[in-house]
């Protein structure tokens, strides 16, 4: 399996300048290596997702790039400033929404916003205008007068992001922005992130949800055990693993058996009475399977088409064993399937 889809250090003369770049970032706590030399290059105005299981080092990467902690080795530049030698230059360009809510729970939502306006040295009037605008935009007007600690998880997240936007940052770090949110809040958050991007902001987000990375990111890096296992667009990553399949399920054991003996190149699941036929899911292949079933007089009770998604990539790249069959039904996280 290739360790990287794209070259990690880009050739000179790329069209858009890098908003964030890192070479050989390393960090360890005691004898535990959290980041083991990661290279990144994120063009301005794009969305980059760092995808990885818990403990892969995602948060550590965000903390280093946002100047919260210092790296043990390697170099990183954010907005043209070196994080180690010019942290204030970096800080002036970025906004950070960490994994844990970074709001002041003791004061109200509005006071939190005005605090940010003051720290960005906005004039009083301008600060009030910006605060009111963002509270409105993030649907927090009704809650603005209540202490932030009384907010629900989704409201805290929205306030958190609203506070991050006060200084109009050009680069935004979002560390697991939707962890712990209900589905509706999660979709709202996605919408917010898309709006940010359409405004030209560069977004660096971490997530453990593959659909989130697929949904939002221009480029994805899979981080595993402190190393980048693969990097590229969602499409490029999906191409890394074996193709999809069509699954036929039978209610009648005898129909199942006759189909199983007649078809070649299949994977049998005798308990579930289902068969997997390798397929890229194209119309032509589907028709040939259907035609064959018709001509053989076999009727499947259910037919589902499975195209490889990021789940498969993720398990293939981060799993301990070599995943020759990435779609085994006993995997902890059942891949999404599109029922037809």
């Amino acid at each position, binding site marked *: 399996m290739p360790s990287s889809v794209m070259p990690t250090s880009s050739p000179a003369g790329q069209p858009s300048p890098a908003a964030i770049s890192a070479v050989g970032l390393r960090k360890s706590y005691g004898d535990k290596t959290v980041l083991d030399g990661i290279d990144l290059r994120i063009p301005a105005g794009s969305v980059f997702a760092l995808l990885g299981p818990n403990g892969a080092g995602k948060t550590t990467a965000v903390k280093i790039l*946002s*100047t*919260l*902690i*210092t790296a043990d080795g390697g170099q990183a530049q954010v907005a043209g400033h070196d994080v180690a030698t010019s942290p*204030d230059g970096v*800080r*002036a360009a*970025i906004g*950070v929404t*960490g994994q*844990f*809510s*970074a*709001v*002041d*729970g*003791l*004061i109200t939502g509005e*006071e939190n916003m005005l*605090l940010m306006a*003051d*720290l*960005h*040295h*906005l*004039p009083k009037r*301008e600060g009030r*205008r*910006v605060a009111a*605008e963002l509270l409105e935009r993030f649907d927090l007007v009704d809650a603005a007068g209540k*202490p932030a600690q009384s907010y629900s998880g989704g409201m805290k997240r929205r306030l958190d992001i609203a*506070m*991050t*936007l*006060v*200084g*109009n940052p050009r680069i935004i770090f979002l560390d697991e922005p939707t962890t712990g949110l209900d589905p509706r809040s999660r979709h709202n958050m996605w919408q917010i992130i898309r709006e940010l991007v359409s*405004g030209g902001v560069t977004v660096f987000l971490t997530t453990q949800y593959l659909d989130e990375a697929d949904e939002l990111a221009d480029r994805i890096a899979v981080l595993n055990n402190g190393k980048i296992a693969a990097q590229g667009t969602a499409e490029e990553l999906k191409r890394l693993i074996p193709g999809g399949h069509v699954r036929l399920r039978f209610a009648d054991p005898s129909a199942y058996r006759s189909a199983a003996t007649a078809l070649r190149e299949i994977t049998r699941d005798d308990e579930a009475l289902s068969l997997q036929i390798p397929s890229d899911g194209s119309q032509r292949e589907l028709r040939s399977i259907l035609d064959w079933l018709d001509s053989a007089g076999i009727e499947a009770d259910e037919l589902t088409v499975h195209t490889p998604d990021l789940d498969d990539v993720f398990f293939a790249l981060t799993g301990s064993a070599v995943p020759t069959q990435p779609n085994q039904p006993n995997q902890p996280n059942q891949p999404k399937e599109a029922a037809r």
Partner: protein
Amino acid sequence: MSAPVAPARPTRLSLAVRDSSTMLRRNLLHARRYPSLTLNLLLTPVMLLLLFVYVFGDVMSAGIGGGGADRSEYIAYLVPGILLMTIGSTLVGTAVSVSNDMTEGIIARFRTMAIHRGSVLIGHVIGSVVQAVMSVVLVGAVAVAIGFRSTDASVLEWIAAFGLLTLFALAFTWIAVGMGMISPSAEAASNNALPLVFLPLISSAFVPVDAMPGWFQPIAEYQPFTPTIETLRGLLLGTGIGHNGWLTVVWCLVLAALGYRWSKAVFNRDPK
């Protein structure tokens, strides 16, 4: 969306002043919204004042002024120490609130913003000094209500006494901030700051140092509370100050410098 306002290139100092005053407003807002912590801490000095005056007063007064003092003279003897003990009590609140604050996510946010690095701590310190001075005024009012009178203090001496209390509060607040910074929890912070409440008990606050065991007298005499109490007595009651004046100032400056450097070093460490 806000248009980026082009800031007139601020100097380092103006940035420090501006951000620190923003942080100060935040801390005072906390104190105003949640005054119970500060007020609870005031109970200790007020209770001790009432206890020593009304319950132990007759016995205690026999130990000062060669045995001929009465209860009102003991009030006069007691109040300077009680005022410093009030500051000691508010320091527990400082340590606890700093420790609480450091566990808040918003501190991480401050660290990733282009603001004056020390402003978070300076805001805490000034906010705590303001609260300490207000507490001293409150406890002082209780003292006056039960009969404390300054016998011969001039306006200048009153101002000096006030300044001394403020300097003392400032010095010890930096220490308390450092204690709060290294405390992983509010309980730990409260325990770490306990010596600051305990120190006045082994000073000349309640009984003269002469009345203590001989081997202990040097400790009691030169620990920071005793010279400060004696200087305060000198200013308010006209007793001799002697070397206690400069001893107090030196103590305060050394403690302030140590506390400042300590707190700053801890704050600049990578957060976990």
